[in-house]
Each structure stands twice: as C-alpha cells, then as structure tokens.
C-alpha cells in the first residue's frame, strides 16, 4: 500500500480501525479531538459497524470502553490530558479488573499549554495504575503502535496508554497502512468474577497486576519501539523519549555521536537503561513533558553519575521542547533569526463577532453593576474568553464543572450574589452534579447556562443534551419559577438585563438559560446541508 498523509491523531484512528477496533469512546479536547472525528468520518468504520459516538464526559467514555472489553471486544478511549483526571477513577480500577478485549487509552498532553489549563504529564497516571505506555515519535510509529496495542493490552491484561503530545497529534506525515484485522466476537471473561472488585477479589487481582510488572518490563526490553544505538562518544549517553528523539536527531543529521536509547514503550526497559548507564560517564535525558524518567534515573539522592535534563537546568523545567532547546542542551550552535519588530502586536483569539456569549456578558456586566465585580465563576469553553477585554467579566476558570460548585462555595462563605457561567456541553459533562448540591442546600447562586447547542471550543461537536437543558434543570429540582430562558441578542439587551437582575436578587438557586446556536456551528451545518 502506498503512503497516505495522516495527522498523528488520524494515524492513531486508522491504526485502531486496522487493529480490530469495535468501539471508540471519547469526549472532545484539544489535541485529541480528531481521533474520534476521523473514525466518525471513516466509511470503513461505518461498514465495520464500529461504535463512534461522543460520550458525556471522559469517565463515562472510559467505563463504556471497559464494558465493551468485558464483552470481549476491542475498545479505544480518547481524551486530552485533563480528561485523564476525570476518567481517573475508572482508569486506575480498570488496571485492577484487567481486560477481556484489549483497551487502549489515548491521552493527549499539551506541554506549553497551547490550549489547556495545565501541562500535566499523563505518564504519571499510567505509572500510578502500573500499566504500559506507548509514546510514538512519528505518525508511522503512532499507526504501528496502535495496530498492535490491543494485543499488548490482552497479553498483559491491563489497558494500555498511548501517550501523545500536541506536536504528535497535530503534525502530518506519510503513513503506510497494514491489512485490517477482524474484530473480536462477543465473549464473556473466562473468570466470571474478574470484574467484581470486592476486596477479596480485588486483592487477588492486584497481586496479579503486580506479578505482571515483570512481563511488562520484558515486553519493553524486547519492543521494536525501544532502540539502543551505540556511538563513539561515551562521555555522555542520551535517553530520548517519543517526539524528543526527533529533536535530538534534527541536531545530528548524520547520526548521533553519543550512545542513544530511544524509549517509546514503558515501563522503561531496564536492561537497556542499565546498558547506557554503565557505558557512559553521564546521561542526558530528553523527554517531552515532566521529568518522569529523569527523576527515576537520578534518584532522590542524586548520588550516581551526573544526570542532565530538566531538573538541573540543562533544559527548561516547563514547556515543550524544540530543536533549538535541545541543540543548546547538546552544546550545538544554531543560526539565529531576527527579533520580532516592535510594530508587531499581539493578536489573541476572541469571541466571534455575533457570538451569543458576547450578549450574555454584556447583559451580565450591567446587571452586576450594583454589586461590584469579583463574583463570577466561569468554566471552560469559548465563553472563557469573557475574561479578556472588552468584557473582563469572569473571575475563575479552573476545571470543567467548577463554575457552579465554586459559586456555591463562595455563596456559602457569604459572597452573594454569586454567579456561575457554564456552557451546555460543560454542564452535562460535570455541571449537573454540582447543581444538585446547590439545589439540596438552597444555595444562593445564579447559574447561567449559556446554551449554544454545541461544543463550540473544540470545533462544534454534538453537545450531549441539546434541547433538554431546561428539563434537566427541572429534574434536578430547580424551582421552575426560577428557570429563565432568554435569547442573547443585541435587541433583547434591556430585557435580558432585567431578567438577570431579578434572579440575582433571588435567595436560592436560579438558572438562566440564554439560548442561541453558535454561529460557527450554524454556518458549518448550513454548508453541509447545501452539499
């Protein structure tokens, strides 16, 4: 087969389809979103009857994937790194239940926080759960890893993490495909109690997981993705993981003069690590994200051979790597570009002209004037851009769902009125349970669910409860008298200010639902319909 140009995300999606996938479960999040979108757009996936609907959040995705595994089939879970936090409960326990059909969890990290709240390194989670990690360095490897990852998962009887970063996910290159493997049929686990984590069973399972660690290390030591390449200069050995290996080789187009251990499968391959450590006077560690391997090799006492990397300042402690940072770490000089001229101004993203969130903030700012600023707890989505001028309208953005619960806590502390601003997709992702807390206590908060009928921030994916937000609020127990639906349009400004102002006065839970479709999603739909 000839090569096709694939984004890293697309290579993973195609690798999964060709690897015998039966279902993908995901919640959108940059830079992981295109994996699900590729499977959704794939004719082949449609013909194969592969499940490919978005889940309400990352935890429900992880659990559904585990259910598919229980039933004997191969499943894929995809989310961005912070989604890992949401899925953590099921993720960690899935390592204890083990799998029946293979399970692969793609967690897409975002070092340098191009579009994220933090730059946490997902490898910590896999280490915590004691499962293998695959970390590709290019699109072909991403495809090849995904193609065989289900078998690895079935062999070691745990989920396998495929860890990627922004550059891997969103970089395109040629990929050669392999023949598609058949899906597995429905089959129950051999042991009917494997997935019942009662303490007695969990203890037995956990000991199995511990015993499996040696098998995982052995798999890493024999993995084609981990390679040891000798070099003449033994004053320093280099351990490079995933995409960091590319930046190393960029600086040595004719081959690296130092011994290099490329690690793309974890747990780290003990034999090869011992080999490079023994052969060299010092070790340089290049890894994208946190100094995970560096901490391991260096040890708390740091009393072995010199270990260089992010912890001793050879590389920056934060942010993503690039060829120039790695060159500096290697003592290689590169030509420098010119500085950015002073005329160049920042051009930050902003809410689209005509976006309904704009009208919501305009009205909210006016309605809040009598109370003063500092009481608006927002959430994650396009509407987070309300933090920027001209609105300067929000005071927090922490994690999905935190708007309602933080407003509740602030109100409990006496800061009233307290306002939450949350999007429709974020509300169904993890805002509903917080609203229940507030209803149960009659907290004095005003919740604005800015409903644009889509998951706008990540490109307009279907939002789980479009058309049902009002019913959900009623079902949770919000007094219908205090559920107000408004239309965020310029011409309605006065009326909307009045409605918000009224509810701010209410001593209890109010929900205001501004409803108007995202203009980007609407125009995409119109274009698709015209075709």
């Amino acid at each position: 087969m000839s090569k096709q140009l694939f984004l890293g995300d697309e290579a993973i999606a195609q690798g999964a389809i060709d690897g015998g996938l039966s279902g993908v479960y995901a919640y959108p999040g940059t830079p992981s979103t295109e994996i699900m979108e590729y499977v959704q757009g794939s004719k082949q996936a449609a013909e194969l009857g592969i499940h490919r609907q978005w889940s309400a959040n990352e935890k429900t995705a992880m659990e559904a994937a585990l259910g598919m595994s229980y039933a004997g089939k191969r499943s894929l879970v995809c989310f961005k790194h912070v989604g890992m936090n949401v899925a953590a409960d099921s993720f960690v326990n899935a390592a204890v239940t083990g799998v029946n059909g293979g399970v692969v969890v793609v967690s897409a990290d975002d070092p340098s926080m191009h579009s994220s709240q933090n730059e946490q390194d997902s490898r910590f989670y896999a280490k915590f759960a004691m499962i293998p990690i695959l970390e590709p360095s290019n699109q072909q490897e991403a495809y090849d890893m995904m193609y065989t990852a289900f078998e690895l998962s079935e062999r070691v009887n745990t989920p396998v993490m495929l860890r990627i970063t922004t550059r891997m996910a969103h970089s395109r290159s040629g990929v050669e495909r392999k023949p598609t493997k058949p899906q597995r049929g429905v089959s129950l686990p051999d042991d009917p109690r494997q997935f019942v984590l009662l303490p007695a069973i969990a203890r037995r399972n956990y000991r199995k997981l511990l015993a499996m660690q040696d098998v995982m290390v052995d798999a890493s030591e024999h993995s084609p993705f981990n390679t040891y390449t000798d070099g003449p200069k033994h004053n320093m050995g280099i351990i490079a993981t995933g995409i960091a290996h590319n930046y190393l080789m960029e600086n040595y187009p004719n081959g690296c003069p130092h011994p290099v251990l490329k690690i793309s499968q974890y747990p780290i391959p003990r034999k090869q690590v011992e080999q490079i450590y023994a052969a060299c006077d010092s070790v340089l560690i290049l890894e994208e994200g946190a100094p995970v391997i560096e901490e391991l090799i260096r040890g708390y006492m740091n009393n072995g051979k010199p270990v260089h990397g992010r912890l001793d300042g050879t590389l920056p402690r934060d942010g993503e790597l690039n060829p120039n940072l790695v060159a500096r770490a290697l003592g290689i000089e590169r030509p420098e570009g010119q500085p950015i001229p002073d005329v160049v101004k920042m051009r930050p993203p902003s809410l689209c002209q005509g976006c309904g969130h704009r009208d919501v903030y305009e009205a909210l700012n006016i309605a809040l004037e009598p109370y003063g600023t500092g009481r608006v707890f927002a959430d994650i989505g396009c509407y987070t851009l309300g933090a920027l001028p001209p609105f300067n309208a929000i005071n927090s953005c922490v994690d999905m769902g935190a708007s309602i619960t933080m407003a509740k806590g602030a109100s409990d502390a006496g800061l009233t009125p307290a306002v939450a601003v949350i999007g429709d997709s974020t509300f169904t992702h993890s805002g509903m349970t917080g609203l229940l807390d507030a209803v149960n206590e009659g907290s004095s908060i005003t919740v604005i669910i800015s409903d644009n009928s889509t998951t706008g921030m990540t490109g307009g994916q279907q939002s789980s409860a479009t058309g049902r937000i009002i019913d959900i609020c009623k079902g949770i127990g919000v007094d219908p008298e205090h559920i107000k639906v408004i239309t965020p349009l310029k011409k309605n400004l006065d009326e909307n200010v009045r409605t918000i102002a009224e509810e701010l006065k209410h001593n209890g839970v109010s929900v205001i639902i501004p409803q108007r479709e995202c203009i980007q999603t609407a125009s995409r739909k119109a274009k698709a319909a015209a075709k």
Partner: protein
Amino acid sequence: MKNDIVLAGVGGQGILSIAAAIGHAAVSSNLNIKQAEVHGMSQRGGDVQSHLRISDRPIASDLVPAGGADMIISVEPMEALRYLPMLSPEGWVVTSTTPFVNIPDYPPVEDVLAELRRLKRCVAIDADAIAKEAGSARASNIVMLGAASTFIDIPFERIEDGIRALFGRKGNEVVEMNLKALRAGREHSEKMR
C-alpha cells in the same frame, strides 16, 4: 533538497489549504514531508501558524528549527513579521500586503510595510487585489501559494495538481478559478524577484 517553510496568518485565512496543496504536491513528487499545525480554538481571529518541511531525505523534527526556515509564507503582513525569529539569515519572506485589522491597536500599515521593506529578501504583493482580478477575492491564500511556488523545489505542475486535489470536490469552475489565482500569484512574484 530541503524546504523548511513557516506559514502564517490569521485564523480563517486559509493557511492550512496552502499547506495541504504543497503537501499533496510533495507526496506526489515522492518527497518526505512533515507538517505541524496548530489546531484548537474554533473562534476566528487569533494568529495561526503551521510548519511545513519537505525534503528528499528523512525529516526528524516536526518543528522547523528557529533561525532555520527557508521561507515564511504569510497571508497577512504583520503576521509575516511575527515569525522573523524562525527565518534563516538567507531565508525569504513571501507575504500579502493586505492587513487584517481585527485588534484595536493594529499598527499603521505604513509602519508594517516599512519593516517588510527593510528585509533583504522579501516578496510583498497585494494578494487580495490579484485574487479579485483572477476572479475570486477568497482565493488570496492561493495567490500567496503561487507567489511562494517560485521558491519551492517542486515542479509547478505538481502544485497545480495539489490545487486540483484540494478543490476537485467543489467542481471544475472552482478548480479553474484557483488555478488562475495560483498562476497570477506566481507571475507577480517572478516579476519581483
């Protein structure tokens, strides 16, 4: 052969279409390619960039090394300047002169063009005007691709094929219009070199 290119513009201006057309041309010429894009925010209006690397040898890094780009292709003049740290001392800037003003503190256009004139190697063309002349104001990104094509070591016919592949689904008329824009951009750039 090696072309390291930084593509620049504002979200919604179509730099990914430029990348896709070159990508197609590179693949059909049996060259290696890596293209790093920045996705994420769906809102329009922020600055966007993409790194495109083409070579007859294997390519290691997805990112062009700073100070190593052979060319900056920009569909907006101020955005061209934003990536000067990426440009190699011998590199070319190929940019449109039409400003995209969506921020309150956009500098006087004359100041931006003056900075461009100070560059040793710069092709600055009025892509919007050329695109309109060629039949569609929306094809200014393709005009810029045409202008840049004289610096890309891929036969021009392959790039034309890239346009056909990119717009084929939209019908013959759209393809022809974009080919016209492509050729017009190339002609203007040849005159300016």
